[in-house]
């Protein structure tokens, strides 16, 4: 029987927007924790909102602290690992709406967030977070090895 210890990995999932020659992801203004199905699995089955920047796109779109995100753009969250979840968030682009299916209390609602353009400071912070995440991804890969 697999153990279902919940392991949260706080990610500063800042997302991006992109101008013509800009590789920056769109910025959401929200921090999310990943929920893993068990302590010995890298699979992620939902996200919880653990930080909202006042006035940021997530706040303006109506995302709230403690929201449990179960789907993004209609696709149920089932990330195989951290790398896959980061790819999803890095695909967000400024000005392109993202629909989050949210479990909030006893309700299920859809929240649309329009990512904003990352400022230089946010972009630097995002790069720093990604560098840190890289170590975790490597650790996850090592976990899979026999």
């Amino acid at each position, binding site marked *: 029987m697999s153990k279902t*210890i919940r392991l949260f990995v706080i990610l500063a999932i800042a997302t991006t927007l992109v101008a013509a020659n800009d590789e920056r992801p769109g910025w959401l203004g929200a921090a999310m924790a990943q929920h893993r199905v068990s302590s010995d699995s890298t699979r992620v089955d939902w996200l*919880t909102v653990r*930080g*909202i920047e*006042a006035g940021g796109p997530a706040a303006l779109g109506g995302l709230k602290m403690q929201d*449990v995100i179960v789907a993004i753009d209609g696709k149920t969250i089932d990330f195989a690992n951290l790398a896959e979840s980061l790819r999803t968030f890095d695909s967000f682009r400024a000005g392109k709406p993202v629909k989050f299916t949210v479990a909030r209390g006893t309700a299920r609602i859809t929240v649309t967030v329009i990512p904003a353009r990352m400022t230089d400071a946010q972009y630097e912070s995002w790069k720093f977070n990604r560098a840190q995440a890289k170590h975790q991804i490597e650790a996850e890969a090592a976990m899979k090895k026999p």
Partner: protein
Amino acid sequence: MILAPVFLAAVVSIQTAPFACNGELIAGDVRARLSDAGGATITVPDDAEIEIVLDSADCWAAPLVAREGGASTMRVWRRREIGGPLSLPRGSRSEVVLRGEISANGLPPTRVTCSASPNAWRCVLPQIPLDLKVSAEDFVPVYFWDLQPGERNRGLTLERGGSVSGWVGADGAPLDGVRVQLTPAAVAKANERDALRVQTRLASNRGFFQFTGVAAGEYTLTATKRGRATGETSLSVAANRESLIDALDLPPLSAVDLRVSPALDPSGQAWQVFLHKRELLDRSVRPVAQGVVSVDGAWKKDGLDRGPYLLSVRDASGAIFFERELSIDQPVLVLNADVAVIPIRGTVRAGDTPLEAELRFEAEAGLVTLRSNEQGEFSGSVPKDGHWNVTVTRIAQGQSTHLQNVAIRKRDDGTALVDLTLPSTYLEGKVVDERGQSVADGMVYVMRKGRLVAHASLDSGGTFDVLGVEPGELVLFARTTSGDSAEVKRELSEGTGALLTLIVSKGTTIKGRVRDAAGNGIAGAIVRSIAAAGRAIEIVSGPDGQFSFNLGSGSETADVILVAAGFPVKMTTISMQQPDVVLQPAYGRLHVAMGGAPPWPSVRRGARGFPLFSLFRPRHDSLDPYEIADDGFTIDVEPGAYAICLGGRCQDAIVRPGAIARIDTRAKKVKEQ
């Protein structure tokens, strides 16, 4: 007695060329027809200035204020009208009184005639490019920019509510591309709904911005543009009124020019400078610059926003020797930092045994790290005398002992002698798992009355030793990758020690569900608990309200706090047999008045006790708790009996549904309303 008014003549000439202008001049009840030459003489009362307006089907002129006997010139343009459909909010009365105001090159802001019928509006304007502002009582003003002479038709939609409008610029000229943010003052300490009321606009190329649908209250307006200082002002917005901001100035960025004396740190290396910006809303700081002072003691940083900063000068090891709050509001702030340096030397021992250790001195004045040699001797510098907390870390053993209030006294020669003598106590032992296997990866913590007094890393064999803890009753526990141990109490006296074995366990996992009375799972509920050995737990329930966490070794139950949106905070106990929690919507309020400094109170419900802050709802980054009140905190809680404890004294309060129970931890009485 009736005084007959005295009428004198005012002569008004009209600049109409190159077009003809028919009509009348009107001054109160007096009218005068324009002559073919475009002039008129009008007789006005002499007791005051009087406004003269032009009534013409083909010309427009701004109202003119004339004095008796004077000759004035009224500048006239061709007349045009603009108007179109009028939309009002549902339920509004159809009659609204419109006011118009125009501004254009060569024309000061001037009132124009506007009118409204149930479904249409119109304003009479000069036939020139202009800006038009249309307002009506209780509605948000509408701005029409760059209306061209040929434009005749525009829709007008009026919304109710307060609004904030204004301009951003620099040196009197408008700035475009400025990001303007309107933040309720309450965001810093109110609730999430307020945070969502933060609005952002991009100022137009005229530097204009407008926020509509603004609720009455206090706000902060912030304007930012790259390469410019941030403009900021606070304002009040009244219900259904426009708040007009004259102009937010965004001057070029500022600079700090720092001179440090002496030019080098006590070890002869360059000083480091750290500059942090202090946020206005919550007084938190964020780093903005870091650099090294030149050999002649100079450091400069430009490109700075104006506002409050925190600047610190540190030695090469990172010890803070100078710290200053700055307010930068000029192009260049010149600052001289005269760094105080007190050379210190001394020894560190445990009983008679010298210790080779890292010594970390901490105080408000700074943070200094020194090293002692095999003889326990050390030397270095601190920025200030007084009392310091010192952590003595034996590097080789990975063990630290924390000393409080170590006195550093400056002698006549300007130096200080510091001898650190730790008690000759010891704690030794090993950490094993439930099968008796050594556990290598972890720490052992030694606590006294909830305060950490020492800690030690486990070596590869799972053993540890702790030196120099003050005699008295102690609590030890181990925290490892294999789990936590139970807490173990020991009494130590001077010159004695203890040998012990700590057993860690994976513990048991409890799986439960947060739900409402109808059985629906509640997603996003925060579950907080304190497991064995003081390990704090915070998890969030999943989409169907499910949660699970490790209870630690030897535990079958857990005291938990449930914090869910839309429900009051609940304190309860769950067990392996009854792991589910039912939340009820009925709530009361618990108000705890308290002092502004530690110790902080705890909240008890039955046998369960948690720090007061454990009951707080999550907040937006960097913001004060939603529960904050003038003299403490107010928390929505499940009705019932509570006790607030501080310093060993508890006060009881019954929280009834819909009522507020007040407890003042500075007094003994409990009030209930």
